[in-house]
C-alpha cells in the first residue's frame, strides 16, 4: 500500500501539451477512478505514474519518494492494460509468473505463488493454456492475476474492461471491487465509462482536455458537478443543458423570451450574466400540458429501459430528456409540460463553464 502525490504534472509531446498541470493526492489504499473522454490525457497521466511515459514537468511521488527518474520496475506498480498485453508465446502460468521469474524468485516458490494467485481469479484449471485459447473474460483475469502476483504497492488499470461485452463488464466490475477490498492496495482506474467510474471509485477524478475538472466522491460529482463539462459527462442520460441569461430576480431566460424560475439566492449577483442552466433528466417531471409554471414541450421519442424510461421531448427546437419511472402512454408529437423544481437546477457560467453555487452549502443541506 502506498500513497501517491501528483504535483503540477504536465506532459507535452514536442510543443503539443496533452496534460496541463495535474495536482492530486491519493491516500493509501484508496480506489481512484480517472474519468474522461478519449484524448483527455487520462491514460497519459496513468502511464506517467507507471513510468511508461516521461514526465515533462512536475513530480510524482509514491510513498513520499519522487519517482520521476525511476524505471517502471523500480516504482512498485502493476498495470492491467486495455488489450491485456498477455505474452502470446507463454502459458497462463508463465504469463502470471513472468514478473517473479525476472525478479529471480526460485521455481518452487514461483509455482506456489502463481497457483495461489490463479485461485483468486478462478484460473486454476487454465494454467497450461496459451492466451489464444482463452475467452476475453479469462484473458482479462490472467492480466489481473499477473498484476496481483507481484503484490504491488499500486494497481494501475488502463480501461481494462472496455474490450469485454456488457454482461462480462458488469461481472468484472464487481470482481475488481471485491479484489480491492481483499488486497487493499492503492488503485488507479482509468475509464471513459461513467457507470464504471461511479460504481468502482472511492473518489472520481474527472478530466477534460488535459485538466482535472473535478475530484470528489461519485455522489458528490453527480449531485454537484463542478463544471458544465462534468455535468454533461457524468450521468446517463446526460444532463439537460440550456443556454441563456439571468434576466432579473429569479428568472432564467433562454431563446429570447422563455423563462424558467431559478433559486432566488443566486439572482442578485448574476443579473445580466450569461449562464448555462442544467437539469438532470431524473429531476425533471412530466406534467399535463398547460400546467401553470411548466414548460410546454412535445414528445419526440421514448427510450424504454425496462426499469424506467426516458422521454425525449422537443421544446422550442431544443431537446430535453425526462426520466420517468412509471409507464407512460404518450405518442410522438403529444403535448406535455415539464416541471422543474428550482432546487434541482444547476447553473454554470457560460464564460468559464464553472459551477455557480445557487446557495451556500448549509442552505442546500436544509432544503434536501
Amino acid at each position, binding site marked *: 500500500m502506498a500513497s501517491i502525490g501528483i504535483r503540477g504534472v504536465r506532459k507535452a509531446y514536442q510543443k503539443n501539451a496533452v496534460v496541463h498541470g495535474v495536482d492530486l493526492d491519493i491516500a493509501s489504499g484508496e480506489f481512484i477512478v480517472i474519468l474522461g473522454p478519449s484524448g483527455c490525457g487520462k491514460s497519459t497521466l496513468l502511464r506517467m505514474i507507471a513510468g511508461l511515459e516521461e514526465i515533462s514537468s512536475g513530480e510524482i511521488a509514491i510513498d513520499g519518494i519522487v519517482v520521476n527518474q525511476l524505471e517502471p520496475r523500480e516504482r512498485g*506498480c502493476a498495470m492491467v492494460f486495455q488489450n491485456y498485453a498477455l505474452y502470446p508465446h507463454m502459458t497462463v502460468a508463465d504469463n502470471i509468473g513472468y*514478473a517473479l521469474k*525476472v525478479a529471480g524468485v526460485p521455481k518452487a516458490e514461483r509455482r506456489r505463488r502463481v497457483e495461489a494467485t490463479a485461485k483468486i481469479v478462478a484460473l486454476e484449471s487454465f494454467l497450461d493454456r496459451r492466451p489464444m485459447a482463452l475467452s476475453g473474460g479469462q484473458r482479462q483475469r490472467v492480466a489481473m492475476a499477473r498484476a496481483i502476483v507481484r503484490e504491488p504497492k499500486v494497481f494501475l488499470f488502463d480501461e481494462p474492461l472496455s474490450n469485454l461485452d456488457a454482461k462480462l463488464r458488469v461481472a468484472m466490475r464487481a470482481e475488481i471491487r471485491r479484489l480491492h477490498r481483499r488486497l487493499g492496495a492503492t488503485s488507479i482506474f482509468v475509464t471513459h465509462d461513467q457507470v464504471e467510474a461511479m460504481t468502482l471509485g472511492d473518489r472520481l477524478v474527472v478530466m477534460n482536455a488535459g485538466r482535472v475538472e473535478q475530484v470528489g466522491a461519485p455522489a458528490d460529482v453527480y449531485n454537484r458537478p463542478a463544471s458544465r463539462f462534468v455535468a454533461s459527462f457524468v450521468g446517463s442520460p446526460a444532463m439537460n443543458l440550456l443556454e441563456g441569461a439571468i434576466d432579473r430576480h429569479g428568472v432564467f431566460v433562454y431563446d429570447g423570451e422563455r423563462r424558467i424560475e431559478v433559486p432566488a439566492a443566486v439572482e442578485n449577483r448574476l443579473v445580466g450574466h450569461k449562464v448555462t442552466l442544467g437539469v438532470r433528466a431524473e429531476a425533471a417531471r412530466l406534467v399535463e400540458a398547460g400546467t401553470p409554471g411548466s414548460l410546454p414541450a412535445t414528445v419526440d421519442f421514448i427510450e424504454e429501459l425496462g426499469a424506467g424510461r426516458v422521454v425525449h421531448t422537443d421544446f422550442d427546437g431544443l431537446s430535453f430528456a425526462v426520466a420517468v419511472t412509471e409507464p407512460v402512454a404518450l405518442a410522438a408529437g403529444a403535448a406535455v409540460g415539464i416541471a422543474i423544481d428550482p432546487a434541482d437546477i444547476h447553473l454554470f457560467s457560460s464564460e468559464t463553464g464553472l459551477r455557480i453555487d445557487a446557495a451556500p452549502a448549509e442552505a442546500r443541506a436544509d432544503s434536501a
Partner: protein
Amino acid sequence: MEKRATFSSTTIGLIFIAPMLLLIFVFFYWPSGQALYWAFTLEQPWGGGNQWVGLQNFQQLLSDPVYWNSITRSLVFGLASTAIAMGVALVLALFTDRELRFHRAYRSIFVWPYAIAAPALGLAFRFILAPEAGLLSVLNSVWPNIWNPALDGKDAMIAVIIAFSWKYIGYNFIFFLSALAAIPRSLIEAAAMDGAGPARRVADIQLPLLTPTLFFLLVINITESFQDSFGIVDIMTQGGPARATELMVYKIYFDGFKGLDYSGAAAQSIILMGLVVLLTIVQFRFIERRVHYK
C-alpha cells in the same frame, strides 16, 4: 466469404495469364528441362549431336573431390554469410525499433544495398578490401601480409562473405523491423512493468515472437547464398585463389562456359536446384507447422 472476381469466359482468363506463363516457360521450364536433358547426355561443345549416358555425369561429379570441395565451400559461405547478415540485421533492427536518434533515416538507408547489382557490389568490395590500398591495408602495415585475399584462400572467403552479408543485411533488416513493429507496444510495456530491462525484453518477448520471421529469413538467406553469390565471386575472386572461393554456382559457370563441359555443368545445376528445392520444402513444412502467434 472472400469475394472473387471471375471471368465470364475462360478464354479471357487464359489470355490474361498467357504472358506470365510464357515468361515462366521460356525462362524457367525450358532451360530447366534442357539442363535436365543435358545432365543425362554427353553434349558436344560445338554442337553436332549428343549421346545418352544415363547417370554417368552424376557419378563422375560425386566421385570428384573438387566438386565435394565446392559443396563444402558453399555451405561454409552460406552459413557464415547468413549468420552475419541476419545477426547484424537483427541488432540494427532492434536498435531502430527502440527509436534511437535518426531511426527514420536508417530505415531507408539500410535497404539500399539490396538494390545494388552483385557485380557492382563485388567491384566496390574489391577496392575496399584490397590488400595494398583498401581499408584493411592498415592491418598489413602493422603485420605485413596478414591480409591478402588474392593469395590467401581464407582471406578470399572472408572477403566474399563480407560482401554478400553486406548486401543482405539491408534485406533482412526490413523484415526484422516490420516484424518488430508488428509486436504490440503494450507487450513490451507489460514486460517493462514486470521488471524486465531492455536486454531481457529482447530475449523473453521480442525474439520468441520473431521466430516465424527468423525461420523465413534463414531459408531465404541460405537459398540466396547458393544462387546470388555468383556475381560477387566472379568480380572479387573468380573462384580463386586455388579454388578457395569456388562455390557451387560459380563452378557451374566455370565448368560450363570456361571448361565447355556442358553436361557436367548441367548435372551440377540439377544438383544445386535439387538442394534449393529441398530447402524450400523444409521451409514450407517448418513454417506451416508452426503456430502463428496472435
